[in-house]
């Protein structure tokens, strides 16, 4: 039976797992595998595991429970070892690296912040500030068939949108950075112009989320800031 891995902790973590279960249906039983320095929280890997809501929540819940009592290295969802023995071997092989990372993460939690902006608001700002965009907009309104000018307008807008979004994203990160240990930005952006995870010390959690709220207040209703956390430090392992 292969072994599903949830997390790695130091050996002195209390591993209070009572009352929670692992992935699978029926839910698998959690157990701990320990070396002298490290523990791994595992369960049997259910056959045909999929990323079902139930399983994702189970994975996340195990990590959150562990996180309450000390540093945790959260595994990516779906990681399976051939058997328990090989999990223990991996703990031994990577012992120093894991211990060091656990030490770095001690007392820290992840917060994920996404920010988006109402597109019309952004377009209005561009039109108000760019003479060229304003002229192209007026021209293409009056000449709906002027395809080349439309493309030129769109290209200009696209460039402006990217530029303005990245400036705003950087402003937000800069405002919050002093309350955080590290940041990890998503590589690819979508409709959110900002998608960044912050590693935050536990004692700074409240001031951090207050700072996010103040930032949202300052920016007003055209912006939408969405903060998620505290989370296991997925982005910092």
């Amino acid at each position, binding site marked *: 039976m292969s072994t599903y891995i949830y997390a790695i902790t130091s050996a002195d973590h209390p591993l209070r797992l009572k009352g929670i279960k692992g992935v699978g249906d029926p839910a698998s039983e959690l157990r701990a595998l320990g070396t002298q320095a490290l523990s791994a929280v595992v369960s049997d890997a259910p056959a045909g595991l999929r990323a079902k809501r139930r399983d*994702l929540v189970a994975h996340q819940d195990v990590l*959150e429970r562990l996180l309450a009592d000390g540093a945790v290295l959260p595994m990516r969802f*779906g990681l399976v070892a051939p058997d328990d023995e090989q999990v223990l071997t991996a703990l031994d092989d990577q012992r120093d690296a894991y211990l060091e990372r656990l030490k770095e993460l001690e007392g820290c939690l992840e917060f994920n912040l996404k920010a988006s902006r109402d597109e019309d608001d952004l377009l*209005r700002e561009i039109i108000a500030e760019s003479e060229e965009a304003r002229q192209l907009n007026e021209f293409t309104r009056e000449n709906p068939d002027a395809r080349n000018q439309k493309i030129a307008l769109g290209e200009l807008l696209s460039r402006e949108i990217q530029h303005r979004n990245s400036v705003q994203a950087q402003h937000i990160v800069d405002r919050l950075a002093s309350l955080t240990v590290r940041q990890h930005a998503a590589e*690819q952006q979508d409709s959110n112009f900002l998608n960044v995870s912050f590693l935050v010390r536990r004692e700074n959690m409240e001031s951090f*989320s207050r700072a996010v709220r103040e930032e949202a207040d300052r920016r007003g209703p055209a912006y*939408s800031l969405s903060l998620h956390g505290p989370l296991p430090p997925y982005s910092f392992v």
Partner: protein
Amino acid sequence: MTVVPQSNSTAGGSGSGNLYDVLELILDRGLVIDAFVRVSLVGIEILKIDVRVVVASVDTYLRFAEACNRLDLESGRKAPTQLTDIVGEATESGAKGKSKGALTGAVEALSDSLQRAGDSEPEEQPERRSTASSSRRTSRRRED
């Protein structure tokens, strides 16, 4: 505007919270051990719709241009001014109204996260939001 993360999130709750919003973290980040495999996760393609927002394309340009042509520039310019006035007149309530709009998601997210737990989660895949912005999120490559 009252929810602040008090401490770590271990309380019980409904489990229906903000899973979608942290999905990318659970699926794409976190530690891997090279010697081990990730199970083949059928269904992730459904969850993680590739973002095909090609910013530099004629289609995108035309879309932006048309959105801009349709824009009501006048009314748009008035709205923020009005809000500022309200804030100026009655800072307290004005600011509250404003922040409410801007941070609803965050407040929900925080409370969800603080109350999340795992014993009553529904069956369906964690694709729950339907706005364009959410459903087109999460674009990083799946683990090979």
